[in-house]
């Protein structure tokens, strides 16, 4: 991906200097090389800080909402990976961003790495991760280590949606087109096959870890309400950690419900969760149900499509279908 980075910097520099765009929304390294955060670049000199590597998992489309609102002149150049373009389309569908203000460069991706997974594998003091195709060379202060690339992929990349760009002005890609990832409903099906008590215990355990930091909400491209229902003090769910544990459950169920049918399954919620709650399992449950009951639907596949929950047909399944299927 170093190659893509070079090409992106060159092209972004050109577009900045000829005035097509006035700022670039890309990635920048934080304190550590794997600590990559979204950043704006406003001149060609700053672009040397632009990073595009194996840890650029963040989905930049949500940052466009605020960027489109500021009164600055000119267009914004944004780097979008194939999966990010789904969120981009969904935001366009919901009129949250202005297509005329944005210049999209689709950047090739071969799956991003999850530093938490690497750390969990026992690698300590990582100073550098080199990508050698299917294998990773991990340089640590305790010596060089190796591991399989597939074992360190982000959850969303394990279940990759494919390498097609759904929206772009130009594409910079040198990677070979990869294959689609594993079946994303595997985890959901596993839970569905448990008994009711096991499921309750599982979710109780997971959701009780929640510290209500709201990171999942803030990063989610579908959670873009100007005022969130959970910011309303009379909603009964505005409290933070001092609340009872019901609130955490309600927060996550309702949040998943509010994005149901609009969630592109970008997996950002699970990626940013500091407590490692598998929030994608909630979203994927809704996606799975929608696919099974109302026909396959991928949010963000095309601009202007009508989400399943703001739509209906006269012969939809009756709610009793929930009772009829299932394992018990």
């Amino acid at each position, binding site marked *: 991906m170093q190659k893509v980075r070079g090409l992106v910097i060159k092209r972004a520099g050109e577009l900045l200097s000829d005035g097509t765009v006035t700022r670039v929304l890309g990635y920048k390294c934080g304190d550590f090389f794997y600590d990559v955060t979204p950043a704006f670049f406003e001149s060609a000199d700053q672009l040397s800080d632009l990073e595009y590597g194996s840890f650029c998992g963040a989905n930049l489309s949500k940052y466009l909402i605020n960027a489109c609102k500021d009164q600055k002149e000119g267009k914004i150049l944004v780097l979008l990976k194939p999966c990010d373009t789904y969120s981009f389309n969904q935001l366009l569908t919901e009129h949250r961003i202005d297509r005329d203000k944005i210049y999209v460069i689709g950047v090739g991706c071969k799956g991003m790495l999850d530093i938490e997974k690497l750390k969990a594998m026992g690698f300590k003091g990582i100073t550098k991760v080199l990508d050698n195709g299917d294998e990773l060379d991990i340089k640590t202060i305790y010596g060089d280590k190796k591991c399989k690339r597939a074992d360190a992929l982000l959850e969303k990349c394990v279940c990759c949606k494919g390498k097609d760009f759904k929206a772009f002005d130009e594409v910079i890609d040198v990677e070979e087109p990869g294959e689609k990832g594993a079946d994303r409903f595997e985890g959901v099906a596993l839970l569905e096959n448990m008994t009711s008590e096991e499921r*309750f215990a599982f979710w109780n355990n997971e959701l009780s870890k929640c510290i209500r930091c709201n990171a999942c909400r803030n990063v989610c491209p579908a959670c873009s309400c100007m005022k969130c229902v959970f910011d309303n003090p009379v909603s009964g769910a505005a409290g933070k950690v001092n*609340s009872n544990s019901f609130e955490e*459950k309600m927060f996550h169920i309702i949040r998943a419900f509010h994005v149901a049918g609009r969630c592109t399954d970008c997996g950002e919620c699970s990626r940013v969760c500091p407590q490692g709650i598998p929030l994608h399992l909630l979203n994927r449950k809704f996606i799975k149900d929608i696919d099974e009951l109302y026909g396959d639907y991928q949010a963000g596949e095309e601009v202007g499509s009508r989400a*399943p929950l703001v739509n209906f047909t*006269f012969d939809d399944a*009756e709610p009793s279908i*929930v009772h009829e299927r299932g394992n018990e």
Partner: protein
Amino acid sequence: MQVNENAKEWKPLIVAFCCNWCSYAGADLAGTSRLSYPADVKIIRVPCSCRVNPMFILKAFEKGADGVIMCGCHPGDCHYSTGNYYARRRMTLLFSMLDYLGIDRKRTRVEWVSAAEGQKFSLVMNDFAKTITELGENVKLGDIRCKK
């Protein structure tokens, strides 16, 4: 959950959301026709089944409901033309999700009851109360970590 001290007998708490135009009138008709339905069913009147916010149902479970039933006009008969079509999709997904989270799917139900179906209202409520009584107390959504 409620404990009747005298009878020492557990009684379920059932919350029924009834739409103003059909089901609530149906409940009324059940009353005027002297058809009985269990007193464990607490009816909450809503303008339309579409008004039922998923949060209402979660709140009901938080406050200790053992079962939640939503009643509305038959599809096609909605006072607001299409409200119950949206409600149908929403509730299907929500109840499926609650089942996924470990609240038994028998504890949630949607029934379409028209204003003329007092008989059906009584039958549905009796049947639902029977189901919930057999299932017993609900799992507690709210008291795991911060028991007060």
